[in-house]
């Protein structure tokens, strides 16, 4: 199959008329890397992906794929393949034809086409469906065909634009695993756009979290989950979302909650040591110590609602100062609304953000 290729974006600017969507964006993707572009709707993920594919003109900057400057090449000459959210299958062609169309257009020999289609179909368990039309397939099958169409191109770089977001949860989980396996098997570079953070966390070697056309953080999933560089990243990644508790950092290095309560910050890895002033404490629901674990310095929250999620439960409580707090407990939790619950925030699992800039402290 195709050889893997690095992708290098240099000072990319993209404009629609007078709207600047991307401004001086730089991004280097190693060969064989699985990079996820994660961000809210309208932040420019698709725009960036389309620019890499050559479907959109860049106003400024250069795009290098496999070491070659492809800034002015046609999409088909860039050694890329692409999978779209809406599948974009050719409705009047059979599955087989959908996959082989590009190769036919390129004049690939018949036998070669057949081999590649068969290989891709087998890999994606599409062999029995080859003669159906897209309309006769389920959503998951359609998306598999779209992936198959990309596969037969044997590109060095695969681009995915929210390929799973039209599918239901179970199918999404299933195909996610398949894509991950595919990546392991092909070893090709993959750039994957999503706004689902579970997808991003499970699939990525590195995640680029974008907002407003700017990459906020580019790092491994674990790093992004554990140490978000700013409040936006912290709030965007993770579900249920990170709890944010307003307050201020005293000069003695403890966190004073608004109205009431305090929390020591021992164990916190400071980036800007010695900061004091208005700040927000962020903590993920599963990192909160509750009940007996909470220890002596605990605050006492009041349970408001318990959401059983099968494998575990989400407990919604309210702190004495009125701030809401979600925490994850085991599935068998015996908490019921109204219960008092001591909670503590371990310093090594916290995130602290400067209120004025939103940046991690």
């Amino acid at each position: 199959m195709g050889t893997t290729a690095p992708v290098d974006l240099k000072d990319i600017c993209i404009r629609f008329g007078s709207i600047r969507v991307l401004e001086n964006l730089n991004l280097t993707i190693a060969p064989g890397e699985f990079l996820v572009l994660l961000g809210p709707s309208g932040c420019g993920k698709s725009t960036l992906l389309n620019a890499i594919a050559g479907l959109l003109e860049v106003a400024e900057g250069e795009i290098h794929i496999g070491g070659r400057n492809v800034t002015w090449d046609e999409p088909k000459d860039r050694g890329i393949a692409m999978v779209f959210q809406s599948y974009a299958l050719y409705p009047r062609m059979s599955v087989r034809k959908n996959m082989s169309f590009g190769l036919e257009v390129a004049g690939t020999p018949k036998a070669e086409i057949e081999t590649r289609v068969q290989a891709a179909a087998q890999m994606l368990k599409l062999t029995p469906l080859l003669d159906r039309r897209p309309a006769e397939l389920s959503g998951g099958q359609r998306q598999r065909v779209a992936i198959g169409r990309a596969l037969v191109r044997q590109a060095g770089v695969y681009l995915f634009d929210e390929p799973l977001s039209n599918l239901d949860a179970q199918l999404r989980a299933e195909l996610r695993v398949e894509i991950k396996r595919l990546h392991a098997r092909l070893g090709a570079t993959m750039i994957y756009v999503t706004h689902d953070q579970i997808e991003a966390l499970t699939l990525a070697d590195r995640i680029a979290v974008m907002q407003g056309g700017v990459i906020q953080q580019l790092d491994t999933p674990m790093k992004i989950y554990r140490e978000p560089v700013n409040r936006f990243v912290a709030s965007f990644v993770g579900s249920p979302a990170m709890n944010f508790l307003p307050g201020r950092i005293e000069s003695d290095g403890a966190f004073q909650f608004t109205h009431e309560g305090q929390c020591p910050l021992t164990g916190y890895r400071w980036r800007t040591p010695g900061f004091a002033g208005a700040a927000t404490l962020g903590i993920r629901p599963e990192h909160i110590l509750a009940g007996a674990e909470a220890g002596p310095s605990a605050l006492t929250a009041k349970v408001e609602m318990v959401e059983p999620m099968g494998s575990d439960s989400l407990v919604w409580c309210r702190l004495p100062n009125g701030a809401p707090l979600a925490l994850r407990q085991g599935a068998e939790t015996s908490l019921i609304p109204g219960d008092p619950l001591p909670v503590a925030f371990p310093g090594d699992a916290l995130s602290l953000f400067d209120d004025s800039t939103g940046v991690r402290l």
Partner: protein
Amino acid sequence: MTAAVTPRGRKPTRITPARWGIYAFLLITALFFLLPLYVMIVTSLKPMAEIRLGNIVALPDVWTVEAWAKAWSSACTGLNCNGISVGFFNSVKILIPSVFVSILVGSLTGYALSFWRARGTNILFTAMMIVAFIPYQIFLYPLVRVFSFLGLGQSLLTIIIVHTIFGLPTMTLLFRNYFSALPPELYKAARVDGAGFYQIYGRIMMPMAVPMIVVAVILQVTGIWNDFILGLVFAGRENLPMTVQLNNIVNSTQGERAYNVDMAATMLTALLPLVVYFASGRWFVRGIAAGAVKG
């Protein structure tokens, strides 16, 4: 609710007055719509003597298809007494290539306009829409000059071009709307696959546009088949369409009017579009639903 019956299962259906009203409305309107067709058919099957007596809706006392036979094969227009059958084949000869070419050009234009949204294209489109409102008779004389200047004169080719020109606004509108409503990802996917402009058009877009093509065919078939003045002026003497013969039979200023033959000739001329409509009415609605509404 009376205590006697416990509601259980299907509610006993009573045909409501509203339902009656709907059927009554539909039936009465259907009669109104069918009346002219009925009168034409009945009249065409009566001998002239009965027509002069004049109950237009009465069934014929004497049924005769003489008028139809005459209209088809022996009614005279000028020196030629071959009925309108000659024109029928001329009309077919004009119809088929004209429908094909006009849809081809219209769809290609619509496709280009939806694919490629440059600044000038909007003006082009607006101009076409304006033209759709202008009585095309105004273009007759200048067009005659243009074609003679181009050395095309009057011929099958000329009439095909003329029909294409006058079909262009509607066809473009239909196809542009249809293609614009398609997901842009389809274009993108095809471009990544390396398909060029015309390959995308021919192998992906047109096969998808079948519902719209049906609408376009229906509109063009009726439009071109029913055309009289363009055929008269541009088709050339060998290719005069059926409507010219029909006009000759129906609109002769002197001589006795054989209403039954007139009606039969009219029916014969209208037959093809009628068949097209009755056969494809379902597709027509579907095709319109597929794109035309999104004006």
